[in-house]
């Protein structure tokens, strides 16, 4: 059972939320409601969704969601609740991936080519970045790579740089976070951790 870290006492997670059935909330199990909403959602839902739509305060929402995450994690079943792309979403456990692909026809996302991954890594870490800078870092023209990444909705233009020709600068999208299992950009593995690399480590 979750407890409020601010007041230090056990809080039962209910609030007065009007439901279409006319029940006003004193007895409404908010955690259950959150769970049901997340079950129905196609996309990760941000904390702000629960705050805005249900009028629940952010701290309490966070506690409820975190406790749901823990519960599902402990349960260790076929689905889990994760924080991804700035939101919360139910996803299937990776243990069942092969079966799901076979039985339910779930499609596994195809891998990106090495060139696209390099371009994407540059954009992810250097955003906002213009094409010329990407070309410089890779040593080759990257225009086609960027076009393909845009088609896959992994990068998008995020503005223009104040340079001659006013070139577009690019950044990553929410789908990028989703596909790479990241919650926010700061979750990217740190570039500075690459200090010395042993050449023998590579394939």
């Amino acid at each position, binding site marked *: 059972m979750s407890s409020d870290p601010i007041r230090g006492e056990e809080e039962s997670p209910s609030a007065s939320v009007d439901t279409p059935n006319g029940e006003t909330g004193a007895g409404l199990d908010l955690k259950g409601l959150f769970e049901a909403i997340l079950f129905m959602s*196609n996309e990760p839902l941000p904390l702000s969704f629960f705050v805005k739509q249900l009028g629940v305060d952010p701290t309490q929402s966070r506690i409820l969601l975190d406790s749901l995450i823990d519960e599902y994690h402990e349960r260790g079943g076929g689905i889990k609740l994760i924080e991804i792309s700035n939101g919360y979403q139910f996803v299937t456990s990776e243990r069942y991936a092969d079966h799901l692909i076979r039985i339910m026809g779930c499609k596994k996302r195809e891998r990106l080519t090495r060139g696209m991954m390099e371009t994407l890594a540059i954009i992810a870490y250097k955003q906002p970045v213009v094409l010329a800078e990407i070309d410089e870092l890779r040593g080759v023209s990257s225009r086609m790579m960027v*076009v393909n990444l845009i088609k896959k909705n992994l990068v998008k233009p995020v503005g223009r740089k104040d340079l001659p020709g006013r070139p577009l600068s690019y950044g990553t999208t929410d789908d990028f976070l989703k596909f790479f299992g*990241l919650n926010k950009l700061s979750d990217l593995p740190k570039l500075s951790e690459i200090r010395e690399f042993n050449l023998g480590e590579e394939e």
Partner: protein
Amino acid sequence: MIFEQKSSEKYVIHIDNFEGPLDLLWDLIKRSKIDIMEISLSHITEQYVAYLRLMEKLNIHVASEFILMASELLYYKSKAILPAADIEDEYFVPPLPPDLVEKLLEYKRFQIMSRKLIEGYDLQANCFSRNSDSPIGDDVYLDLSLFDLLNAFVDVYDTARDVEEGEIVFDELLISDRIDFIKVLLRDQEHIFFNDLFTLQAHRSEIVVSFLAILEMAKSGLIRLLQHTIFGDIKIQRA
């Protein structure tokens, strides 16, 4: 060019798909098993150029950036040969110039990072959610830069046919005529697309004149130019 056998290492015909000159350089450095800070510029340059010659021999086209890097390497090499006052050691082997080392290291960092990112990708690819297909982004129309316009122009230009030999084109194509034509088109429709201005068999001159016409019209404020997706078709709108 004769292929020499360098000590025990034979030149194997390795047609790797290199992402670019930096990728190739790293491969050569790795094979030499010498640290990037100590490796001989001359040695690397030789191997690099040998690789390009091999590609040429096999009729494999390499991107121009590879050739550019070759010329840069040769330039660095020539600079290194010139005697410098403070080099006393006649056995001194010029290493790679610091600029190039910096570029190589930076590139390598991103190569490594992209591999790390792929790990996360593979993990996440095994987790499915309700309705995993995400819709493509909205139809957002962006303002164009001159370069976007030029790129669109080049795309159309490249697909145009050349005037056949023996064909004499008499008609003068006037920009003002094209402007009138575009005005007529825009009378009936609120917008048209750049590619709509041309028939399939458009002459290059027709394309050039149309392009100049829309530039002129944009300058006079008669039309607005918008682009749908990046590198997409250009929308010409009544102002």
